[in-house]
């Protein structure tokens, strides 16, 4: 007889919403687990309070992380997470505000908001789970889809060069920019742990494998094969240079922390300006 055993992270999960809608073989669960482990570590070390964490998620498979975690979580329309999170951070500056979304949610429809949050060095942790495709809507091209790839809306091949999120984030003044991969959960957990301690904007791009949708387009639908294909493309580096952030499906991807500085974030700048005005 099977005995229900509680998972050590269950306390951070809205178990009543399970099972998740993620497909068998999807790696978003690994991303969520790595994130919860990093959060748990910080809470246990007394560096973070559970009632001071807010998740904001939009629309898409990975945005549903916000739906499954048991913290304050707000869901909103496709692409509109960052401005909503910005307002929460301004009014609840003691909160760690975490935005989760996919490449389509944050880089395409929410691209303008991303750009301005980066420019502001807004005190948010933005996690972009990049599966290089629109998964939930059935396999359309995304800003990070590799060049020439077949998708349902580019049936003759993708004519667009994909976006290098790392280069974009580094060029606009974020404090912390890193790339992780769902195929390397321990490194991912370390990156999340670090990012949770940052002021200003921390952006983490997480490469993920999507056997059901992206896999179908590249001809690898077996979950293990799909996972291994991505894993073989990953190179781990300590403090990689910006040039090594090159985003190319053929050449593979370098994961690691690309930028880690400690400039004042938006909230610091704002409170400094308001201090003289209000006297507090």
């Amino acid at each position, binding site marked *: 007889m099977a005995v229900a055993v509680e998972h050590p992270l269950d306390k951070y999960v809205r178990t009543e919403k399970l099972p998740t809608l993620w497909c068998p073989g999807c790696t978003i669960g690994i991303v969520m687990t790595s994130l919860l482990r990093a959060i748990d570590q910080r809470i246990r070390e007394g560096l973070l309070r559970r009632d001071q964490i807010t998740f904001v998620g939009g629309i898409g498979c990975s945005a549903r992380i916000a*739906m499954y975690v048991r913290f*304050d*979580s707000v869901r909103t329309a496709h692409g509109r997470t960052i*401005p909503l999170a910005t307002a929460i951070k*301004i009014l*609840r500056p003691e909160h760690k505000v975490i935005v989760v979304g996919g490449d389509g949610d944050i880089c395409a429809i929410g691209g303008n908001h991303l750009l301005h949050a980066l420019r502001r060095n807004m005190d948010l942790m933005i996690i972009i789970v990049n599966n290089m495709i629109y998964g939930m809507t059935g396999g359309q091209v995304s800003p990070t889809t590799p060049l020439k790839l077949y998708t349902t809306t580019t049936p003759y091949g993708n004519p667009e060069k994909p976006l290098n999120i790392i280069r974009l984030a580094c060029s606009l003044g974020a404090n912390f920019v890193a790339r992780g991969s769902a195929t390397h959960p321990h490194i991912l957990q370390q990156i999340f742990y670090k990012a949770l301690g940052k002021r200003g904007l921390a952006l983490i791009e997480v490469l993920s494998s999507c056997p059901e949708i992206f896999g179908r387009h590249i001809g690898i639908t077996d979950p293990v094969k799909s996972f291994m294909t991505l894993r073989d493309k990953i190179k781990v580096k300590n403090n990689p240079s910006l040039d090594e952030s090159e985003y190319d499906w053929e050449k593979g991807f370098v994961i690691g922390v690309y930028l880690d500085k400690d400039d004042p974030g938006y909230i610091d700048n704002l409170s400094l300006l308001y201090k003289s005005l*209000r006297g507090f």
Partner: protein
Amino acid sequence: MRIDYISGNRAIAEAAIASGLKFFAGYPITPSSDIFEYLAEELPRRGGYVIQFEDELASIYAVIGASWTCSKAMTATSGPGFSLMVEGISIAVMTETPLVIAYIMRAGPATGVPTKTGQYDVFQAEYGFHGGLPIPVFAPSNPQEAYDLTIKAFNTSEILRTPVVLLSDASIANMFGKVLIREAGEIEIIDRRSIEILRKKGCEWSLDDVYEMKCVGDGYDIYVETLTHDEKNIYRPTTDVQRRLMWRLYRKIINNREVLFEYSFHNYGNKRCRNMIITYGSTFSSVSEAVRELNKNEEDFCVFKLKTLYPINEKIFYEKTRDVDKIFVVENNVGLYVKEIRSILRDKDVISISVIDLEYPDPDEIVERVREWL
């Protein structure tokens, strides 16, 4: 209590502060920007925040985010900006997020004449967002009403947990007038935190369909759901849950029509109101001038000015129009809101008098157009 000589836009800003505004997010657009600019100077001094975002989409979502920290939040915009905001308003309707949008209409469509007036967007304010659930719309016709209705807009949004539109236009925005400004304590300010107290105490509002609101920071498990959800806030894609949710959100507003519907009735000393002009917003100024002329010939004209465009209290319409022969609806557009009135007063002659004018509609033109029907 004090009397100030201020513009319609300034009155909105003053009333927002009196209502306890904590957060304003916006994007500059004529003719609404001076609300933004005044608040940008005033609000931070009082502990609030005023932030300019990258566009109107960001602005409305920032307002939603702010509201979910239980802070009173608003934005101000005009037609093209509101067009971008409608996506977020639908999210606010579904998530039952209190917020206020000051919508200062200008001449459209497209970029139209940005500095001039019109009443083209009445339907957009009421119905412009996906989902088919209209939200309360208040329409002031002078700075004093702009002040009073802004306070009403905030109270309504808080108590019914809904977005509310304050629909003004370029003429009222720049119209100066004496405004009686009431200080905090002299006006009733409702906060969503006091819904439960009001519910127990009993009040004029119908609160059966309003749920208590818990905010970010109140504990660690508030969850804001944009998908169709049941009473426990869990996503349920079933017809049954969809019906219950839709009707509750609809009833929440419509069942408060008696509290929400504001109007003023002017019979200019006539014993009988044979001919009635229905109007709203800045066009009221032109209409009251036109009626002075029309009443010279003992035509017995009265004016029914609407200050609430949604929801309407039909009973008052029936009462006021019982002995009326002809009803004229004067608007500064191609004849829009007249359709709403026709759907209520189905057994009356409801005549549309559309006078498109970049300034106030010319009273002489109104007189001429009305006389064609006498």
